[in-house]
């Protein structure tokens, strides 16, 4: 990997920065930079082995954090992305047919759905069985999906960070610098995916770095390296998008009508994700927001309103002086 030239003191060109497909590294001030890198996670070939979770923790020295024991959520005991889980594999048991698969699972004698009233979204404490999505009796499939920070084109976490701890890398990814983070926590509500999180014992914010340290020496991220089935693919985002489009067409042709890409579209509310997914159902089923929007989208117009309000205030004050002067 060649050295990257950053223009010190460069003022980012914000034209179009908050909308549509842009070059985030260029926006971040990198004059010559490598192509934007990202993940394409094809959940249709995920086998739920969790090698990604473990490889991520190993490489990044993240603490083990399961304090609850068995969650009862299928084979998922780490529950979701957080300060100490940067890759997370979701397991979804569903009454839906997989194309050309006869699961041979038939529960006729019992009202299974009454035990899991809200499908896969049933909170663990309320579930009477491993949460199950409603569907026809006899249909059954088990979805697995490895979730990760999306490395948004328009990253709200980065926008709101007051210390510069969160920054855009030359690869177009978003990274927190733990030695700069002051633990203010602004980034946490800013993330439209609920990814970034404060670590309980130190208060600082943590999330996936897309293995910035590995990328810098020409290696792929630990999770992609460990994935045995190539469910997690790493590479230049342009290539990944092309590959994902082909894979989607292939699945549609095979009759997997549910298949869809998530975070692939540069025109979505976050300008497309650097880490995007092929899903086999609605995003909500996987615990993903259906229509994420960069929470700082309206900052510019908010500043306009702030400006207008300020002008009004100033005008009012001047008027007050004027009036006062007259009074005097």
């Amino acid at each position, binding site marked *: 990997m060649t050295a990257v030239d950053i223009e010190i003191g460069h003022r980012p060109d914000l034209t179009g920065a908050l909308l549509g497909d842009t070059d985030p590294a260029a926006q971040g001030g990198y004059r010559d930079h490598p192509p934007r890198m990202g993940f394409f996670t094809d959940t249709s*070939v995920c*086998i*739920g*082995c*969790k*090698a990604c*979770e*473990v490889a991520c*923790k*190993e490489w990044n020295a993240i*603490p*083990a*954090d*399961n304090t609850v*024991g*068995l*969650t*009862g959520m*299928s*084979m998922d*005991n*780490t529950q979701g992305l957080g300060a100490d889980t940067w890759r997370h594999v979701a397991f979804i*048991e569903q*009454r839906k047919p*997989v194309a*050309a*698969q*006869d*699961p*041979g*699972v*038939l*529960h006729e*004698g*019992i009202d*299974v759905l009454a*035990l899991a009233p809200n499908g896969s979204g049933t909170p*663990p404490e309320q*579930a*009477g*069985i*491993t949460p*199950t999505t409603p569907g026809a009796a006899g249909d*059954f*499939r*088990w*979805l*697995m999906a490895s979730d990760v920070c999306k490395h948004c084109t328009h990253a709200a976490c980065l926008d709101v960070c007051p210390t510069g701890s969160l920054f855009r890398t030359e690869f177009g990814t978003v990274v927190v610098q733990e030695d700069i983070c002051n633990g203010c926590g602004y980034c946490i509500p800013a993330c439209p995916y609920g990814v970034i999180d404060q670590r309980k014992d130190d208060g600082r914010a943590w999330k996936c770095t897309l293995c910035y340290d590995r990328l810098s020496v020409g290696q792929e991220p630990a999770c992609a390296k460990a994935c*045995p*089935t*190539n469910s997690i693919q790493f590479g230049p985002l342009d290539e990944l998008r092309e590959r994902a489009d082909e894979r989607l067409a292939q699945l549609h042709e095979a009759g997997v009508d549910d298949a869809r890409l998530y975070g692939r579209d540069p025109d979505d509310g976050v300008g497309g994700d650097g880490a995007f997914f092929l899903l086999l159902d609605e995003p909500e089923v996987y615990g993903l927001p259906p229509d994420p929007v960069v929470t700082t989208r309206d900052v510019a117009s908010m500043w306009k309103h702030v400006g207008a309000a300020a002008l009004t205030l100033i005008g009012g004050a001047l008027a007050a002086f004027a009036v006062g002067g007259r009074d005097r």
Partner: protein
Amino acid sequence: MAECHPVGFQWVMEAKARGAKIIHVDPRFTRTSALADLHVPLRAGTDIAFLGGIINYVLANEKDFREYVVAYTNAGTILNEDYRDTEDLDGVFSGLDPDERTYDFHTWQYEGMEAQAASGQRDQEYQDKTGGKGGSSSSATRQSGHGEAHGSGGVAISGVPQVDPTLQHPRCVFQALKHHYARYTPEMVSDICGVAPDTFRQVCELLTENSGRERTSAFVYSVGWTQHTVGVQYIRAAAVLQQLLGNIGRPGGGIMALRGHASIQGSTDIPTLFDLLPGYIPMPHAHSHQDLDSFIQAESTKKGYWAEMRAYTVSLLKAWWGPAATPENDFCFDYLPRLTGSHSTYETVLAQLAGDCAGYFLMGENPAVGSANAKMQRMGMANLEWLVVRDFSLIESATWWKDGPEIETGELRTEDIGTEVFFLPAAAHTEKDGSFTNTQRMLQWHHQAVEPGGEARSDLWFTFHLGRIIREKLAASQDEMDRPILDLTWDYPTKSSPTRPEIVEPEAEAVLAEINGWDAQGGPLSSYEQLNDDGSTACGCWIYCGVYSDGINQASRRKPGTEQNWVANQWGWAWPANRRILYNRASADPDGKPWSERKALVWWDEDKALWTGHDIADFSASKSPHYRPPTDATGAEALSGMDPFVMQADGKSWLFVPAGLTDGPLPTHYEPQESPVPNLLYRQQRNPVREILPMVHPYDRFQPSGDEPGAEVFPYMMSTYRIAEHHTAGGMSRYQPYLSELAPEMFCEVSPELAARAGLEHKGWAMVVTARNVIEARVLVTERMTPMTINGKAHHLVGLPYHWGHGGLATGDSANDLSHLSLDPNAHIQEVKVGQCDIRPGRRPRGPARVELVLEYQRRAGITEKTGTEV
């Protein structure tokens, strides 16, 4: 496979991406099912009925690859007229001795030829083949239930089998197969296995449409097949099917055994098993006055490559005892220990309990959690004088004496235990040089990446220095008994790293060189065909001969697949002779032409008069397909140019096994030791010669089965298994925080129906009870578990991952506390894939009440020491 072998499963996914259809047959819906094209849940313990049903479908609909079957299998061979099938004798074969629990295999033989086993229980034939020389076998050998032949002796041991190539002779193997499996109909499969006829037909069609001249199908199995009282016959059933479909010796075919962990294949090739020497040479039994000649005469074959057993054995003895092994002293053959019966891990535990076994080494094994009836394992260890545990962490097998379950129940008190326990930390594979042998028989070398931490040392280091120190202590001994130790070649070169000069590590490659072998001048050998029986060659394992050819570690080759042909035989090294697919002569037709271009692997090049192709031929390279042996030929020369199965005495693949198995020539459905269902096919409920240990121990009571009174006390089926999150008995995973948190505690999996029926609450506690023990587990209610309808009645399965124990970061009771010691008679493996139990809500009792609860169940079910031991 996705659960236990996720890394290997990538190739299944790759095959799927190329259009392969994946069928997953398993009682549970697992990660593998989630990615398969078809998941077929079947009742645990009924795979032979299922596979037998497919065999029947193939035979009844003439879906077999007839040219392959006629040319390469023993389908046409005529059987002895005294042979009686299970159809004739209501579930047993001719030759059963119910008192001794053994079969006399003589009636299973071919007419006019005594076929010799190339593997398995070869000592069965000892008396026949030595003409009664050596006298009677010891009673211990008999007691072990392992087929000492007790026939007339002196039966002709050679001859020519009679073959009917039309397969019409009423006594030919093909007709015997048809007769045997005729009642394994789709309806019978449905009644026994709980597999719907439609689903079953779909499996039959997918498999047969994808087999034959142009296409091949592969079977992959794991301990789900082996850990049964009929485990070996499960695999045999798949072998029968694959032979009929022409899927052996051809690309994309075969039967792949996924082993429990890395290099289990290596540990049978160079065995940690009591009854084998390296390269599958049998360990000699304790016959009186047996010498090398009578051993070879009894155990080798007249035809095929096992005819060279003397060369393999003498070379092994030369590798071990070097100059001390001479023709005059039978090459130190008498230095080898002798078997006096079965000495498997379970007999060893009984010997510990009886006070006959004083010391025990555990190297990378955690029987206090991982072996059947784990309580017996712990109680056995409590009766030792000394115990050495070499592992990464303080596993349960090293700590049971202070914190084991029996300390809690009061059955053991630490201050009363006399066992001296030594714990020696072990180095991981990343911390040492060595090889892994995978299921494809491929050796891959791994180089040390880091020095071991702290006191950890490699197994090689430990074994070498232990031997060195023992030899030093014995150096002055004049006792004959010590000669085998003192005469060993134990001169391996050592090395030390600059950072850890105190670690004097033997050179692993020097051991590999000894395994490979050398000639009289010390030059490395390149093929087992170079081995001599006169002491001029030494070879530590004949099948590995060639792994160090030209003095180069062939196992460390790593030429990328993209830089060579698709067989890729320049990656690592596979035995024998770097051939990647065994018996690949069968990939070509009898004339030596590939069956199809699409499935071409090796073929006969008439111009060069050589076998050539993508792979290295598993055949004599210059033997023409048209070669026919003279009648007096022996060894490899006795096999014709169209006999691909070169290890077999007749060069054929065996649909019917005339010798070598203790429990029958054809796979037959029997119910497991403990089953809620009577055998619907035969009056015979269980495998009549399953191995019940000679002393049925009070810790190991069996339960009533099927319709027997008391069976209702244990109304549910249970199965133990692994999940992706943990590794076997947990020694490598439960002590790692990142792995422990993924599956942090013991749980059981039940269907919503079973939960409702037994009153179990999701995430609540349940106790699971058998006649051996009671354990507790958190409950995971899931639709992935489904009730099975068997013969019109619903049956429920309790799923029990067996990873946990009282130690480590992720803890829980051990599922193996529930299992028993009824074993497969060929391989001595435990039946832990299926059993019967009760499950009820709540936590198990603590203290002495735990034992009392089990006794109460035993009383309620009317269990005595006789229960379940019937033939």
